[in-house]
């Protein structure tokens, strides 16, 4: 029975995910030890504790809320990566599609005074459009989706910088506050903020992202569309043989993946939690962290919810590392080490399977040997 349990895919995913987390923390800890041994333990604990660093419950709740606010866009990016991955595509362009969503929602809100819902729709359209470019190139010109995705990330970033400069504060590189300049575009809170010590940033973004995860799960597992997509991802030739529209499915998949990442952009920036820095020269890590969250979540939409939260938890937790002992980049370094290790889930799963196969083979050989000996004994 115990062996059967180990063989189940879900159990393996869980074990592998936890091993990855532990491994990541361990290596992060070792790095801290090398930099400054006296503060290492406190630092790693701070990363793990995140908002629990605060002793007062209301502050804890407020900061828990903040972590959740940033989990929502991360989850959307992770779902984007996951959805494409199920069809055998690696959507590294999620980062750029996320930026496109940010651009569309902020610009529509500040320049045109749109409400939050049309802003979000525009974010979807922008993200989907970027995904469509990758999809069309892949389907008709066989351009690798990783290459075109990475290129588009940069094009998306600089277009966004250019466009959003028109709606930035005159004295800083940041875009105007949505709250003061375009309050109609703020995502409705539905009183959710009250649960988190009146955290004004906690909005419908969080339940929306969770609903999106459930919808993705249903689409993949219960619908004809999901059946086709997964068949294409598992065996492209069989999908073609069965008359599935392979090219259409590739394009559609990347459009949907782009839309998911695009919503992610809107879900963060329409809360006014952050403003876009128009002089930014790197693509935000949200889309890339989404890749780690997808794998840490065992390629399952529900697992991805928890994985996204964990990754955001340690990313936020990094901010609490004692800056008198470590340089200010340490928080990003530690969280990125842990996130990096999160990508090793498939590798660890593979190792588990190899281990099982090996021990089974050994057992089989032992049995054979024993049987042979028994036979010899009879003679």
């Amino acid at each position, binding site marked *: 029975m115990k062996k059967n349990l180990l063989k189940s895919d879900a159990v393996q995913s869980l074990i592998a995910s936890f091993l990855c987390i532990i491994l990541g923390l361990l290596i992060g800890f070792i790095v801290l030890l090398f930099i400054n041994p006296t503060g290492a333990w406190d630092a790693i604990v701070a990363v793990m504790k995140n908002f629990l660093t605060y002793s007062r419950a209301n502050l804890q709740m407020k900061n828990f809320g903040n972590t959740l606010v940033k989990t929502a866009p991360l989850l959307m990016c992770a779902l984007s990566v996951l959805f494409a991955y199920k069809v055998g595509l690696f959507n590294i362009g999620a980062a750029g599609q996320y930026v496109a969503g940010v651009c569309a929602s902020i610009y529509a809100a500040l320049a045109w005074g749109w409400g939050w819902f049309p802003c979000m729709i525009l974010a979807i359209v922008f993200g989907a459009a970027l995904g469509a470019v990758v999809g069309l190139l892949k389907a008709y010109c066989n351009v690798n989706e990783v290459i075109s995705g990475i290129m588009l990330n940069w094009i998306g970033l600089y277009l966004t910088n250019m466009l959003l400069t028109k709606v930035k504060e005159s004295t800083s590189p940041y875009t105007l506050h949505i709250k003061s300049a375009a309050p109609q575009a703020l995502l409705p809170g539905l009183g959710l903020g009250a649960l988190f010590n009146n955290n004004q940033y906690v909005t419908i973004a969080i339940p929306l992202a969770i609903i999106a995860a459930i919808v993705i799960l249903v689409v993949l597992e*219960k*619908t*004809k*569309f999901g*059946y*086709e997509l*997964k*068949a294409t991802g*598992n*065996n492209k*030739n*069989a*999908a*073609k*043989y*069965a*008359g*599935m*529209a392979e090219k259409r499915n590739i394009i559609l998949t990347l459009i949907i993946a782009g839309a998911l990442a695009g919503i992610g952009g809107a879900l963060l920036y329409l809360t006014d939690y952050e403003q876009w820095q128009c002089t930014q020269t790197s693509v935000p890590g949200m889309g890339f962290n989404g890749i780690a969250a997808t794998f840490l979540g065992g390629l399952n939409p529900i697992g991805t919810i928890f994985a996204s939260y964990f990754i955001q938890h340690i990313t936020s937790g990094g901010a609490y590392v004692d800056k008198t002992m470590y340089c200010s980049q340490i928080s990003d370094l530690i969280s990125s080490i842990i996130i990096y290790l999160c990508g090793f889930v498939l590798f660890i799963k593979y190792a588990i399977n190899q281990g099982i196969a090996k021990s089974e083979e050994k057992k089989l050989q032992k049995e054979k040997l024993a049987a042979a000996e028994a036979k010899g004994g009879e003679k």
Partner: protein
Amino acid sequence: MESPYAIEMLHITKRFPGIIANDDITLQLKRGEIHALLGENGAGKSTLMSVLFGLYQAEEGVIKKDGKEVQIKDPNDANDLGIGMVHQHFKLVECFTVLDNIILGVEPSKHGFLQKKEAREKVLALSEKYGLQVDPDALIEDITVGMQQRTEILKMLYRDNEILIFDEPTAVLTPQEIEELMQIMKNLAAEGKSILFISHKLAEIMAVADRCTVLRKGKYIGTVETKNTTMEQLSAMMVGRNVNFHVEKKPAHPGEVILDVEGMTVASKVHKNDAVKNVSFKVRAGEIVCIAGIDGNGQTELVYGLSGLEPLKSGTITLMGKDITNASIRKRSTSGMSHIPEDRHKHGLVLDYPLEYNLILQRYFEPQFTSKAGFLKRPPIREYANRLIEEYDVRSGQGAVTPARAMSGGNQQKAIIAREIDKDPELLIAVQPTRGLDVGAIEFVHKQLVAQRDAGKAVLLVSLELDEVMDVPDRILVMYEGEIVGELDPKTTTQEELGLYMAGAKRDEVKA
């Protein structure tokens, strides 16, 4: 006294689980001769060559070089003994030049720097000596298949190999290139090289070889001098006369034409010639028509063209009076075409899907399995799968939810057959439906094909197995180099006659 043989393989036996691939085979290659190795697919030619190259170790038998026993444990040993091979699929780096490919692995260097000038001189000298015309600076991807092959030959000569093996070298060449190759081989032999020529094309063997060793089903049949034999004799040695099993069937009653193919031409993916050349034939309701031929003569591409996996270069396909030449795969499938594919893992199954999902692969979109809103209807799918599993006796560990990957090859094939036949097609295309199956499963498949025929369906069988070709169909069409070269009646023809057509030694003008 020095042995007259350059290499000898004596009483080689190589077993794989459940099969003896080489059963007491002896092959003696004289110095300076061209020696052909003839046999059908699965006769054991490749295994024997792998033993010679040290890829496999024989359980019994010895290998002798110049009369002295040698051990060949890996390809490096073979290389040291001067054995070289031109593979059927060339092992060349596409984006390197001819010269770079020739010296690859044995690059002359001084202080870590390449000395290409020396190499170039040696290559040019060799190419002149044996009439192997190449352009040393051309990229492989830009030159003809013939020149690529000459590059492969130069690779062997550059390494001073004495024993040259050609694995079906003419399969990818045009007639003119074949002519040239024959001349090159004769030149090489005249210069004292010993050549082993693996082929199943009788005419070429008769034209170029001095002696010929024939294998059949892993057994050594004999070695003959080509000047003392005929193509008929060689063909008889190759295919044998034994028929293993017989399919019970009543006489056919062919009805109206179901499939009508007119002038079909399909381009090849591997070489520049067309894989299917201007082929025309008809299949009627209530008959089984078999496309026979040796592997690689265009059968695969013919089926790809019929099923829509590859586009036609020219020609038309008519299914029950409707032109489906440009119809999508889905359209062909819903218009009454079923296809049991040649490669069940590549096309036939989604291995990570459970059995039930594989059983609906061709009809998952039908209203009985998918609701109007696009949701899969689980209970009817399960019911349908269970019915097929029952009717076609598909065995698996966990029934309908077993991953296809976890099933045996025979049961995977049964699942595909169940799926394709249960669609109730008007035309069933079955490509090597019994490949890799045991005798019981083979019998099952044959019965199903005959049952389809008796139910008034048209069946197009593509097979490489001679027994199957002789037993199952009502008509045989033989394909050779992309063309249909003969139509035979299995009741009156013999395996010898069939073998002659398959090897290209005989051909008729066939009218569709």
